[in-house]
């Protein structure tokens, strides 16, 4: 079942890799580990495409026909290195919204091209990324550069596939970004939090031991989010360390780097 669930992850998740991951747990703890895998929220290409389709359709003023749109619409990837989540996001976004043809190229720009667009109050900029966890990265990027790059634009959205509610609220209260997330996670999605009903307190303690082995510094993931979220192109670092951390003492099932 897991093989079907996790198909398409950037590094192969096969029977051998799953068994290898489970073997890192003591025999008595493997049931908890297996249930953690059952609870992983995996976003494959189809789910991501659906999120972007629904997301764009929901934005006020957007229309597939240029004549019926309000102002210019510009789509920008927030992270731009080759093979990263931003590049992947823009590609998936274009496919999902049937905007892959070259006629739409003009609407998709890199961050460094935004200033040349000479944005006005009639224009809408949509920044694309996969995930908002703590909201720190988006807030910092806004303060460091994006607020200046999009200066003049009437509306600026940050469209992501999924977000933590707390992270979304943080971004919205600290920036001028309107965050649109197709999926939202709340405190009950924090594996180690009191609100999480999937596991008992004992099970949480047991699993946390292994997360601490995977990462002493951030066992519950960046910002203590405690999430079990995995995207097919990369596992966010806000997810628990046992899923993605990889070093000599631990090998995550969803490594973030090759």
């Amino acid at each position, binding site marked *: 079942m897991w093989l079907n669930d996790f198909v398409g992850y950037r590094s192969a998740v096969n029977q051998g890799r799953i068994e290898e991951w489970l073997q890192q747990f003591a025999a008595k703890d493997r049931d908890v580990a297996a249930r953690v895998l059952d609870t992983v929220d995996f976003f494959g290409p189809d789910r991501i495409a659906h999120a972007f389709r629904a997301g764009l359709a929901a934005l006020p003023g957007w229309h597939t026909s240029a004549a019926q749109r309000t102002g210019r619409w510009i789509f920008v990837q*927030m*992270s*731009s*290195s080759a093979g*990263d*989540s*931003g590049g992947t996001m823009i590609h998936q976004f274009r496919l999902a919204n049937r905007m892959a043809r070259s006629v739409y190229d003009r609407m998709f720009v*890199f*961050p*460094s*091209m*935004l*200033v*040349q667009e*000479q944005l006005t109050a009639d224009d809408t900029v949509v920044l694309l*990324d996969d995930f908002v966890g703590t909201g720190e*990265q*988006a807030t*910092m*990027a806004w303060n*460091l*550069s*994006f607020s*200046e*790059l999009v*200066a*003049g634009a009437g509306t600026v959205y940050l469209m992501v596939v999924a977000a933590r509610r707390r992270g979304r609220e943080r971004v919205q209260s600290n920036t001028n970004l309107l965050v649109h997330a197709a999926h939202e996670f709340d405190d009950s999605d924090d594996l180690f939090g009191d609100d999480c009903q999937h596991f008992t307190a004992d099970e949480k303690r047991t699993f946390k031991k292994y997360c601490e082995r995977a990462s002493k510094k951030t066992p519950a993931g960046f910002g203590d989010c405690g999430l079990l979220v995995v995207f097919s192109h990369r596992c966010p670092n806000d997810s628990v360390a046992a899923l993605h951390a990889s070093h000599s003492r631990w090998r995550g099932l969803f490594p973030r780097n090759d």
Partner: protein
Amino acid sequence: MCAQEVNLPTVPVNEVAEPTLVENIVTMFQIHKLRLDWELMPTALKLELLMQKVKDRSERRVAALTGLDQAVVVRCKKLLSFPRRYQELMLDADPEKRIKADFFIELYPILHDRLTARFDWFKPNAFTDAMLEKHESRALKAVTEFRFVKQQLNNSVKANRIGLMSRRLREFADDPTIPVSHLAIDSIKTAASARKIAKSAKVLYDVIDSLDPNEYYGEGELWKSLERLSELIRKRLKQLGRRIDK
């Protein structure tokens, strides 16, 4: 409503012309001068647009127009000289992937060095990629290590060891694990001299630091000497491309 209440037949309006793009950008720079500094890359991109619109790339005039320090304009122009894919790296939202502008500013003198331009194997973009790889693998400890590279390039000319420098620089670029010390072709004399000057500078610094201006108020020759020294230090730092407005 106010006009109606005071029985005015017409509403007096102060009509202000819509600001031009140039006026808008200049106003933004002036506002930012009084607030937090921008990151350098967004500033550079705004400057690029401004320079296009006013059709003037003079650092002195652009600095005067925007209120930016001329040294900042120079740094921005250096960043603009890099291809777009490198500019994107400075703007990346992901802090793990973002490369600081200082990396490219320190690298710039090597890419535009008269000696490297003579090496037939040297390609600026390929060298930049190699340095980024070195930066990622932490073989490059600090971006200021590029100053050491530049020093070795300069000294290799003086020491007539250009061939050796070319070979070592190529090895340095080709292997991400090779540290900057691989390029050291300075004579022992240069290193010893640098240490001696640094030591003398520290002694002089301590003397001037403890000097009470009131006590030496009338010692005109002393102040003239310090002025000359200050000017010379600023001149040398400027030659080095160091910021002297700190």
